[in-house]
């Protein structure tokens, strides 16, 4: 059971992130919930790459051939984090600009696109 805990945590965080977005009353809060949702993918990726008894995949002071954890998922995660940063920057700038123009960050009050 415990061996599946990180995966369960990833799913749990994902669902919490979704819950936050759905019930949010503030656009900034919504954007941060998207960030939370994204962290669930990091947990999942790192858990997948873990190897029992493995150390960091940096061969500066250990010989090649020592058991190390999977380096690919770490590379994927790096890409993921940069993507998250980029999307957050853009989303937050939209929120800031919307606040400047409409005076509010409550999605209930920003009803310009109905129908």
């Amino acid at each position, binding site marked *: 059971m415990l061996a599946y805990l990180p995966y369960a945590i*990833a799913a749990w965080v*994902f669902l919490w992130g*979704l819950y936050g*977005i*759905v*019930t*949010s009353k503030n*656009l900034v809060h*919504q954007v941060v919930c*998207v960030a939370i*949702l*994204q962290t*669930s*993918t990091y947990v*999942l*990726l790192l858990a*997948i790459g873990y190897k029992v008894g493995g150390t960091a995949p940096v061969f500066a002071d250990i010989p090649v051939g020592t058991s190390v954890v999977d380096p*690919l*998922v770490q590379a*994927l995660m790096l*890409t*993921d984090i940069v*993507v998250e940063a*980029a*999307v957050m920057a*853009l*989303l937050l700038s*939209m*929120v800031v*600009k*919307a606040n400047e*123009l*409409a005076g509010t960050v409550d*999605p*209930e009050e*920003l*009803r*310009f*696109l*109905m*129908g």
Partner: protein
Amino acid sequence: MTTAIIPLPIAIPLIVAAFLAFAGKGIGRRACDLLAIATAAANLWMTAIILRGTWSQPQVYWFGNWWPRTGGVALGISFVVDAFGAALAMLVSLLTIAGLIFSWKIFEDTENHFQPLMLIFMAAMCGFSYTGDLFNLFVFFELMSVSAFALCGLKTLEPAPLQGAFNFAIVNTIGAFMIVMGIGLLYARTGALNFAQVGRSLGTHADALVLLAFLLIVVGYLAKAAIVPFHFWLADAHAVAPSPVCVLFSGVMVELGIYAVARIYWTIFAGSLAGHAHELRLIFIVMASITAVVGAVMCYAEHHLKRLLAFSTIAHSGLMLVGVGLLSPGALAGFVLYVLSHGVIKGGLFLCAGIVLHRFQRIGEDHLHGCGRGMWFTAALFILGAWGLAGAPPFATLLGEHFVSHSAEAVRLHWPVYIFIFAEVLTSAAVLRIAFRIFFGWGQPAPSDKSSQIEEKPETEQSHERTPAAMFLPAAALILLGIVLTFLPQIQSRASASAHEFANQSAYARSVLENVQITSTHKGEPENLSSSIVHSCIALLLSVLLALSTVFRDKLGRAVNFTRSLELGNSLLRRAHSGHPGDYVAWLSFGTAVVGLAFLWWLH
């Protein structure tokens, strides 16, 4: 020669975009425009050469010279370019040129950030069409999305564009991270990211993990493809994005989502899900049909030109998913032909909507009644566009529909053809209705509703007397291309042969991992188009009748009262499209849960 230039349609626009971002203010607006158009034209030329080189044989390109190891382990990233991907990349470049030429006359104040973003968007979509690696597909998906979000929110003088871009960004970002989870799960099972290698490792049996990965990946890409119930963002984004950007969104970005589902299914999951192909087919076709019906009904109920066209894109996206969801090579051929023809026609229609906005500073059908009298050429383009949306000859949408309906019959599903007719009639009638009201001034003005007032701010500063050639020529060229495509030599046989290659999972794996060139042995017979021609002419006739009855409702009396309720739309459906991002994400979760439970129930 072909192989050497494969990375260039991605690398060159990126370098030029970086240069334009730095030197844009210094070299001035016109130089930026010219450089961007020249780069897009160079891309068109390069993608054409690549298409010619891959016309009968896919080419495999390994970045960094990282060829796969013995045992079929791929450490590097590959581009696997076949005729489908190459044709899509060509469509991307073509639509980008049209958009950039159109924008010559608008956007006085973007500090020249618009052109580099368009170039990055184009490079991302080309990369997306060429790639053969799961994570690379995701990276290009995100690159495409981020530039799209930025381009969507371009007009920052009103809050509506920002809200549209925000809704777009939230839904697509959640979809993107579902894709990453799916990729992670597949990696856990197979230890690979290359399509061919993953497909081989999955074998012939799909357990719950494979189904979960399939669910997450498919939902992520279908959210981009605006399939119900993941479609809410599209109408918002199109209502507020500038016209040249809408051309790219509806013309090719949405279709790439469905292409991704097709590619991933046929290279990765075809073997493991083969045992449940029939149930999977039904699930896809039901989703697609609901999308087509909802899109068509909402399309007819809209009076904001761009939102109307956006909903027609949703409807046609549903039709394209029917093509892919039939899970057969014949339907795939139809899918590609439909994507190419729909892309150019819809692109041309959005440019026409942009012309209307440029001339009259308004985009609501109710405010534009009769304004367009005398604009004969634009009216002709609208009517030709409607004709193309109805799938009638001589437009190539007829060919697409023919292949798909034929394949549906082959698997004993007789009702998709009626979904096609329904969607085509309503979407085509909506465009005809606009043309009749705006350009001929027939009948009474359209009913006014809240959505037609979205984004009345124009793209240029004051209304104009004449349509500039820079706006008219790309629109006309695109719509006429919809006709030219039908008559390209060998297009039907080539589409059919390429579809059979696309759907051959083991041949794909061998050509990628073992560098074995497999020649296609499929011999296509010439197709008998007569039944499809009959269907599409009926569809065209019905759409003309519907448009006329709506426009002349007052004169025709109670018999055509149903057109009034069609025009007002279902109020429940309209209320669901509320503009609130929380609603959209709730629907996204609902759709994922339903599809996931369907997968577990029927495919496990």
